[in-house]
């Protein structure tokens, strides 16, 4: 049981012997040992500087005063300040003044498109053209008017959303005992007529009276729509849910209450202004 010098390797053996087999006791290379002790030293320094050991009622907070939550709050504030610096108009001006500046679109639309894609494109599409159930933003057909302030307000509070001050717009389910089936079908023909589609003229004239008695409160005389109720115009060829006979019947039968989320709280005031303007530009640039 004695350590021996192994001549072939120049190292000592462990001193153990198993049926004539001996084991070398080569030490770990110096660099490994040094780095092991170094990492331990670094760990001790980190314990001192940063939050580390839990105590009974608290934890060791460290002398560097580091907090990841403080750090991220600073980083977010810094970035917001930088954005304001890069796009100062959005903090300084209100939405009406912003809408009147024709130079903004060329300068800022590419930057705002990122914000749009991250928050709005899921429903309204990357091209802003919307899809079934989600309105097209590139035409000039508006539900709550194309007034910049109204667009901004819709973005803030949403439509039929969970916030207390949300816009409220509901197409009632007229099939739920409010209209006889015959009347309901006549209204469908009338709406087809005023929107310029193929229709049954006799039924449409009956439908006109039913419309007069039930629908003008929101959709206005002749179905031109009403901004104060968020009721869409029925005389154009733009549809949210579809303008076919069967879809119109479904809409009248079961009603509609589309939801637009409110973004107050999720986005900053400046971001909401940016998006309102972006939507406004799309409506101005698109086909009327």
């Amino acid at each position, binding site marked *: 049981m004695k*350590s021996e010098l192994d001549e072939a390797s120049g190292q000592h053996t462990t001193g153990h012997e198993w049926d004539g087999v001996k084991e070398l006791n080569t030490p770990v290379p110096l660099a490994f040992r040094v780095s092991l002790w170094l990492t331990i030293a670094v760990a001790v320094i980190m314990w001192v500087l940063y*939050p580390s050991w*839990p*105590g*009974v*009622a*608290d*934890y060791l907070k460290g002398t560097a005063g580091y*907090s*990841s*939550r*403080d*750090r*991220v*709050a600073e*980083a*977010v504030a810094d*970035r917001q300040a930088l954005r304001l610096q890069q796009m100062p108009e959005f903090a300084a001006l209100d939405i009406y003044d912003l809408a009147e500046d024709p130079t903004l679109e060329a300068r800022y639309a590419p930057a705002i498109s990122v914000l749009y894609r*991250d*928050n709005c494109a*899921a*429903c309204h599409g*990357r091209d802003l053209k919307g*899809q079934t*159930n*989600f309105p097209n933003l590139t035409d000039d057909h508006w539900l709550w008017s194309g007034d910049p302030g109204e667009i901004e307000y819709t973005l803030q509070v949403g439509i039929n*959303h*969970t916030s207390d001050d949300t816009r409220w717009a509901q197409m009632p389910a007229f099939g739920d005992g409010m209209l006889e089936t015959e009347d309901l079908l006549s209204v469908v023909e009338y709406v087809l007529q005023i929107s310029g589609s193929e229709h049954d003229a006799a039924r449409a004239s009956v439908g006109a009276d039913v419309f007069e008695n039930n629908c003008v409160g929101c959709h206005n005389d002749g179905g031109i729509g009403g901004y104060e109720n968020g009721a869409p115009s029925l005389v154009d060829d733009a549809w949210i849910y579809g303008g076919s006979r069967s879809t119109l019947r479904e809409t009248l039968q079961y009603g509609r209450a*589309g*939801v*637009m*989320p*409110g973004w107050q*709280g*999720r986005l900053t005031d400046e971001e909401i202004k940016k998006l309102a303007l972006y939507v406004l530009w799309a409506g101005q640039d698109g086909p009327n």
Partner: protein
Amino acid sequence: MSTPHQKLERNGMGFALMILFVASLGGLFEIAPLFTIENTVEEVEGMRPYTPLEVAGRDIYVREGCYACHSQMIRTLRSDVDRYGHYSLAAESMYDHPHQWGSKRTGPDLARVGGKYSDTWHVAHLQNPRDFVEGSVMPGYSFLSETPLNTHPLEGSLIALRRVGVPYTDAQIDTAMVDALRQADPFANYEGDLQDSYGPNVQVRDFDGQPDRVTEMDALVAYLQMLGTLVDFDSFDAEANNR
């Protein structure tokens, strides 16, 4: 010539004690922080146990493996906070057993997805994700709209959750099945009862666009629309809850 290590190696009892000591360190580091959990979980307003319908939706979320592609953890990084909102709090996972933090984002983080999209969008997107997100690799889950929600396991689920610390009351457990059905039925006239029982931030409506039935889609969308909406950040004291 013998080193301290060699001496220790030859002392059976001493070596066993050293092994025990070193091995116990691992356990200590995992267990000791649990004794100070009150320091970790922030005091917040609005956090509440999940309603039975939300629990059912959460079970579907776990069953379908949503956590494999979606995280529910907004980290304290600017890029995360910029995109997803306020960083996640420990308090927001305190009724999660197990938590759904996840470890990988093939899809976006969902910790604050509640209220970001409409129910209609969630249903249509779950049915066919590529209708809405070009190039999405998310599978379609249209069968959820066809599958009636099985409410039978809910009472047992709530009992199990209570056993691991979620403060469900006896009354909540007794009415779990009916609570789940009525949260998805705006005409049941039950919103007040549910809000009395769970809290004012319970959302009651038909989530899946099929007013006459309660499906797994109702449960999943109810769960998604709740995510990240419970804590009242207006009353959250960031200073006092610094970590």
